């Protein structure tokens, strides 16, 4: 087990810089998820840690040692690839054995390790099959098994669930969480799926365009987003964003005026352009006379069972509200929507930075 440290790590392909000097600490035994939209440099970062890509600049350490120039095999890492990267002509057993070959163990020890991991992952029945004879979920487990037999210090996962159907994804996600609890190995895990990130991570690293936008626990990135990107990227449906101006202790937007919540008192300048952020569950139905309420028109309702999503039009703004499904208003109704002051986030419209701290 080892910690991973990145200091000002840069990756360039020729003249194009795709990772712009990122700093990251993965503690020993921690499960860290790199989360971000497609093309933001997650895979590139992971491959640099694995040693499959050179680090163009900066420092990369695993454990105490700088590993920029260390060969992949000497870094003590194992990797699970997005498309599993199994050897197509080898059986499940041979796939796992081949990963152990460099260790030069006795045949007995190899068999013991392979059988142990196979048991743990429920692969014992499949040992004589080749990858083409396995389902997606089974291949995924074989790929994990092949990484685990070597008992590495660090596990690297690149979108390991993206080729599975939704149900299987939930199932394997749980398996991965259980395995991590059991083995306690350091994990660096790449995904573009926020649900995966929220459920698995001790710590989430949100990336965009080769930069790190925020590092924090799932709770932190959800309830205290550092900026507008994180605020809208985490959470589904996404946070509502309303451009507004500060006027006389009110946040004034077209067709909407909210009191500045007390915790922002003294932090805002008169006339400042801010963006109000509020999650769909921060909006509720209310009587017209309530404070912080605004008239709204229900355009569409989406029934989700327990809750319903309302597509609201408030002045020129389109907002999504999440309300109890029971007693939801019909489309076309004029209602009054209330903004929970505790659920309001404020961002500087210019920089996108949160004004909450």
């Amino acid at each position: 087990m080892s910690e991973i440290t990145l200091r000002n790590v840069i990756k360039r392909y020729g003249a194009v810089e795709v990772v712009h000097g990122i700093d990251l600490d993965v503690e020993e035994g921690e499960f860290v998820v790199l989360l971000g939209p497609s093309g933001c440099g997650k895979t590139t970062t992971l491959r640099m840690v694995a040693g499959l890509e050179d680090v163009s600049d900066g420092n990369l350490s695993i454990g105490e040692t700088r590993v920029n120039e260390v060969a992949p095999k000497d870094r003590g890492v194992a990797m699970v690839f997005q498309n599993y990267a199994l050897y197509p002509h080898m059986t499940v057993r041979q796939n796992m054995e081949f990963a152990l070959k460099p260790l030069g163990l006795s045949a007995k020890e190899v068999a013991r390790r392979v059988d142990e991991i196979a048991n743990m992952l429920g692969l014992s029945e499949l040992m004589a099959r080749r990858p083409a004879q396995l389902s997606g979920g089974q291949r995924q487990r074989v790929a994990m098994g092949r990484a685990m037999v070597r008992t590495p210090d660090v596990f690297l996962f690149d979108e390991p669930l993206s080729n599975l159907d939704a149900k299987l994804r939930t199932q394997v996600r749980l398996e991965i969480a259980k395995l991590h609890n059991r083995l306690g190995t350091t994990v660096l895990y790449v995904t573009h799926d926020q649900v995966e990130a929220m459920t698995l991570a001790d710590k989430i690293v949100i990336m965009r365009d080769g930069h790190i936008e925020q590092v924090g626990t799932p709770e932190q990135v959800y309830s205290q987003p550092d900026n507008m990107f994180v605020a809208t990227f985490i959470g589904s449906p996404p946070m509502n964003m309303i451009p507004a101006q500060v006027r006389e202790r009110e946040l004034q937007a077209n067709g909407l005026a909210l009191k500045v919540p007390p915790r922002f008192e003294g932090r805002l300048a008169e006339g400042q352009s801010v963006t109000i952020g509020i999650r769909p569950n921060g909006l509720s139905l209310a009587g017209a006379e309530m404070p912080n309420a605004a008239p709204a028109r229900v355009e569409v309702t989406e029934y989700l069972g327990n809750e319903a999503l309302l597509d609201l039009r408030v002045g020129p703004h389109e907002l999504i509200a999440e309300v109890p499904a029971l007693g939801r208003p019909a489309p076309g109704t004029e209602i009054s929507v209330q903004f929970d002051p505790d659920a309001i986030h404020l961002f500087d419209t210019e920089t996108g930075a949160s004004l909450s701290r």
Partner: protein
Amino acid sequence: MAYIRKRNRSIFLIFLLPAILVLFLTTIYPMLYAGYLSFRSYDLAKPFVPRVFVGLSNYQNVLTTGDFLHALKITFQLMAITLSIQLFIGVGLALLVTQRLPGMSIARTLLLIPMMISPVIVGLVWLFLYFPELGYLNYFLSYIGIGPISWITSPDWALWAIAIADIWQWTPFIMMGTAAALTSLSPEPYEAAKIDGNTRWQVFRYVTLPQLKPVLVSLLFLRAIDAFKIYDIIFVLTKGGPGDSTEVLSLYIYRQSFTFWQMGVGAAASFVSLIIIVVLITFFFKSLNRDPMQS
């Protein structure tokens, strides 16, 4: 429906007819005629003597006089030498030209040139190179203190001289097929092996080679058929000599038919060769049908 189907059937027969006709005239009829000749005595030098039926005596002649068996042995010797070396160098070159290194795509194209030259020309080029006193090969060898070697005039060297020319011409074929197969292999398993720390040799032996096997078997098979009927290069370089040291099957058949004018014997030898080739093909497809991933 039935009407249309019936009409369609006659239409497709009409479309097939030209192909069948050509096939019959150029392949089936000559083969049948050769089969007919192989049971007759037919001396081309005496065309007006009736071609009497002689039973199996042509076949007996072929299989009992040592010449045919000697030619068969030479053919397989040459095949073994050329195929094994072509495989070795061809795969090596394929591994080299598929590396992402500067100049490799140019090298790949240049290496294909020998394959594009007519075998007769290849024979002539090597004839000049092998020329005992004036040839370039011995000239260069003399600089490193070797030589002079009587490449095509000594029975010890002649078969090697032919093998070298054939290897020069046909190694690119193995290289091209192998390189194509190599570039189609998915790169991820190689990255997995890199992280796991498998050595280059282990990766080649246990990951690359097994995946290449089906392609290599096909390439070797095509080369084997070519090697079995090799003619032009030998005809230009040695004409089967010195003595009969490079007389392969096709030259033997040629000599029986057009030097000794024994068309019947030539036809019988052709048929025996045909049977050998058919056996080879069957054997090959059997081995292909076995799951190529096993073993």
